């Protein structure tokens, strides 16, 4: 007999925080996202970087020299993996992390003050510019931080730390009544 398996998000039982309430500072959590780790083969770093830059509607996050996390809202994990394999054939290794990483989107006028409670990096827009991404420590948890707008940041964390990071962000945002919910677009 064949079965259908339903996927669970680690924050399933914790969201929404307070139904209906959306404060100016808000934590938005996509339920599902195709994510892949890309590791350039030795000597192919530049080629892979160029290839990724050219590729359309995926987001590219820097994690280390020759290594990236690729995010796609539109593709399934399988599609993303397949497309990346075609794009980067013989130049990079690709590992599906769609279930291994959880994405948090933080936005609002006080995001910098909230993040300053956990992240040591200077997030002044002149220093950490829009489009920048990097692995940083947030409190005791390692995350990939990306600036997606003047007052918008995206944090990607390992799945097993998702609840812990969520709780940390809530405490960090307490001063500004941070709200949180799953993304509308699912």
């Amino acid at each position, binding site marked *: 007999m064949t079965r259908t398996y339903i996927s669970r998000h680690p924050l399933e039982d914790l969201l929404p925080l307070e139904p209906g309430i959306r404060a100016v500072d808000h934590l938005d959590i996509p339920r599902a996202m195709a994510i892949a780790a890309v590791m350039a083969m030795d000597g192919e770093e530049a080629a892979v970087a160029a290839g990724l830059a050219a590729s359309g509607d995926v987001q590219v996050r820097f994690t280390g020299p020759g290594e990236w996390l690729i995010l796609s809202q539109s593709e399934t994990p399988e599609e993303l993996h397949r497309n990346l394999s075609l794009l980067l054939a013989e130049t990079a290794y690709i590992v599906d992390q769609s279930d291994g990483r959880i994405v948090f989107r933080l936005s609002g006028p006080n995001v910098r003050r909230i993040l300053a409670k956990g992240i*040591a990096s200077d997030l002044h827009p002149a220093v950490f510019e829009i489009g920048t991404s990097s*692995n*940083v420590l947030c409190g005791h948890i390692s995350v990939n931080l990306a600036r997606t707008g003047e007052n918008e940041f995206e944090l990607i964390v390992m799945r097993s730390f998702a609840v812990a990071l969520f709780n940390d962000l809530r405490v960090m945002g307490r001063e500004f009544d941070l709200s949180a919910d799953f993304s509308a677009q699912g």
Partner: protein
Amino acid sequence: MASLIHCPHCGVRPKEEFSIRGDASLVRPDPEASDEAWNDYVHIRSNPRGRYREHWQHAAGCRRWLVVERDTFTHEVFSVADAASAAREAGR
């Protein structure tokens, strides 16, 4: 140094993001090298008061091993380089 390290890949980062392994001037001997060479590699340290090269890993960042050249008394950092590049330049 003890507060901030300038990672060549990620920029200025707090000490908390790094883990430290020790003397970076040591070179793993050839399998055929003498017992003394191997003992020195694993157990003997120059431990200078002054300029020193040390292995730090940007564990919470890019995961790269770095060679931090610094002063063990003033804690002034002279340079931070990627360990693999450093090793390749050293002909390894």
